[in-house]
């Protein structure tokens, strides 16, 4: 395989796009906590950006919707927590190892990638539930803390964690940018459009889907590890939440624009902050509003708000802007 071509089919335009992604994110993560003095909100935002980018790699590019994809996030968090509590590993190594657990788990699930649409979505949901029931089982309390949760406050360091998460959120956005500009990304998009044509041109769609799946689960695992570290203590339900770490992320990606570079980031920033604002007033109203929003999104703007954003950028920086 020609790796240069594999990773960079179009290196020229990347720097503009990279700047357009990183500068606003950096500003947001540095200035944000100064304006709203609640670092936890921005920590979660960074985690969500990573998750949205991870989901975008699988769902956005290949069109396969892993409904229970939050399982990798949770396994990343648990892997990190377990290595720190039981083996006293340093935090960085634990997070990376936790993400590797997530990637291993995704390898275990690769047979599911052979399934078509609804079957894939549902079986990934079932896999989520199964893994959750294993981790929260009372008979595994010695290892995972079972339903009583797991504590590892000895390494608690929210400021450092926040910094790393913010940087990695930007990095994950760059990863998506790189993928979208590479032949790899083109292959993934081709799979979304027409799997049969891809197979006919001699490309193994299964293999490419597996790569996307692996990258996605690894990024989710890192996000999970960072989030777990920030919490220092969590119950299984705090990380194994289908609503919080699968569905919400799907909404963010869909709202922003799936399969695009900016979409997941824009969608996450706007909706997550709206979510935080709304939850100040009524958590219940929030469910109803997000539910209705989801219905309207699918029916009326299935491509998200990214095209709109693109138009705005083009009016501000007329010619020679982003493609």
């Amino acid at each position: 395989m020609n790796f240069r071509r594999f990773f960079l089919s179009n290196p020229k335009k990347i720097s503009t796009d990279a700047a357009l992604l990183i500068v606003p994110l950096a500003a947001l993560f540095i200035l944000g906590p100064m304006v709203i003095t609640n670092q936890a909100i921005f920590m979660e935002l960074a985690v969500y950006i990573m998750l949205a980018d991870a989901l975008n790699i699988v769902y956005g590019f290949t069109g396969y919707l892993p409904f229970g994809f939050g399982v990798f996030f949770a396994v990343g968090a648990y892997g990190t927590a377990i290595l720190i509590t039981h083996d006293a590993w340093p935090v960085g190594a634990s997070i990376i190892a936790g993400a590797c657990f997530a990637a291993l788990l995704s390898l275990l699930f690769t047979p599911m990638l052979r399934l078509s649409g609804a079957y894939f979505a549902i079986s990934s949901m079932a896999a989520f539930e199964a893994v959750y029931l294993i981790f929260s089982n009372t008979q595994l309390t010695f290892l995972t803390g079972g339903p009583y949760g797991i504590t590892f406050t000895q390494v608690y360091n929210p400021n450092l964690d926040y910094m790393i998460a913010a940087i990695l959120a930007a990095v994950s956005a760059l990863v998506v940018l790189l993928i979208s500009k590479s032949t790899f990304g083109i292959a993934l998009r081709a799979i979304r459009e027409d799997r049969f044509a891809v197979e006919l041109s001699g490309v193994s769609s299964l293999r490419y889907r597996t790569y996307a799946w692996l990258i996605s689960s690894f990024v989710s695992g890192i996000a999970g590890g960072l989030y777990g570290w920030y919490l220092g203590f969590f119950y299984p339900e705090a990380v194994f939440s289908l609503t919080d770490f699968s569905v919400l992320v799907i909404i963010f990606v869909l709202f922003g624009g799936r399969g695009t570079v900016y979409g997941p980031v824009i969608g996450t920033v706007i909706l997550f902050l709206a979510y935080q604002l709304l939850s100040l007033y009524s958590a219940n109203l929030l469910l109803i509003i997000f539910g209705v929003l989801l219905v309207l999104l699918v029916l009326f703007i299935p491509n998200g708000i990214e095209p709109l954003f693109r138009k705005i950028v083009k009016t501000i920086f007329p010619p020679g802007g982003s493609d």
Partner: protein
Amino acid sequence: MSLFIDAFITSTLLAAFFSIAALGLNVVFGVMRIVNLAHGEFIVMGSYLAIALALHYNFNPVLSLAVIVPFFFVVGLLLYFPIVPRLQKSDDPEMGSFILFFGVSFALEGIAVQMFGVNYQSLSYSVFRPLHVSTLGTTIPTAWVVTALVSVAAIVLVYLYMYRTGLGLQTRALMINREEAMANGVSVNRVSAIAFGISIALAASAGAFSSFISYPTTPSIGDTFTLISFAIIIIGALGNPFATVVGAIVFAFAYGYTDIYEPNWSALVPFVILIAVVLARPQGLLGRKAREF
């Protein structure tokens, strides 16, 4: 040995209940090729309506079906027309429906919390007299037997609709081959709308009994029902309503027996079976081909 028989009877009754709980979901998938992720929420809503009727008018759940079935049939129709035809025109209705109906389930859950609060509610076994019946040396609540009987009746009614009426014939035609059915003049919208209404009404009817036999009613239990229903219809066969019964039997027996012998792991079993079935035979135990390269 009596433990074994006990589990057998319980599992049989559970299978009947889970059949009716999941049947509607499969009808919708079969006819419309869309996935109703809000299915469980309609079970919950039916349950709340049954509880309210019992509380205010002293209806027993069988009687309350006279209100629940027409009410939720109409709800189904009202939901169908603004959403489904439009959804089916989009480029990926199956995935779109996943997300869209999750939105519906979000909204329904929010409404349920608003109206009924988050506390557990159940119907009392004492709505049926005598309280218990004894067979084969085991004693079971009458409510469970009634639940199973109503479920069987509902399945028979759906069967009669599908195989003995003109609309049922059109419904089956639509399930087997959408394009050809349309080319032969099947009125897609009418047939689909009725199927959707039936599906919601079935879910709500299952809900009327759910607090006896499965879980007490809370707004958040809907997701569990949705997942269980999915497990069942996939184990049976997606898009084949009567394979639901087979799926429910497999599910209920796996759950019933592990619940008695290994209660710590019983919740896990259905999902493991689901994943195993999906990987080994994704079309379900009774289905047609579903796997891709």
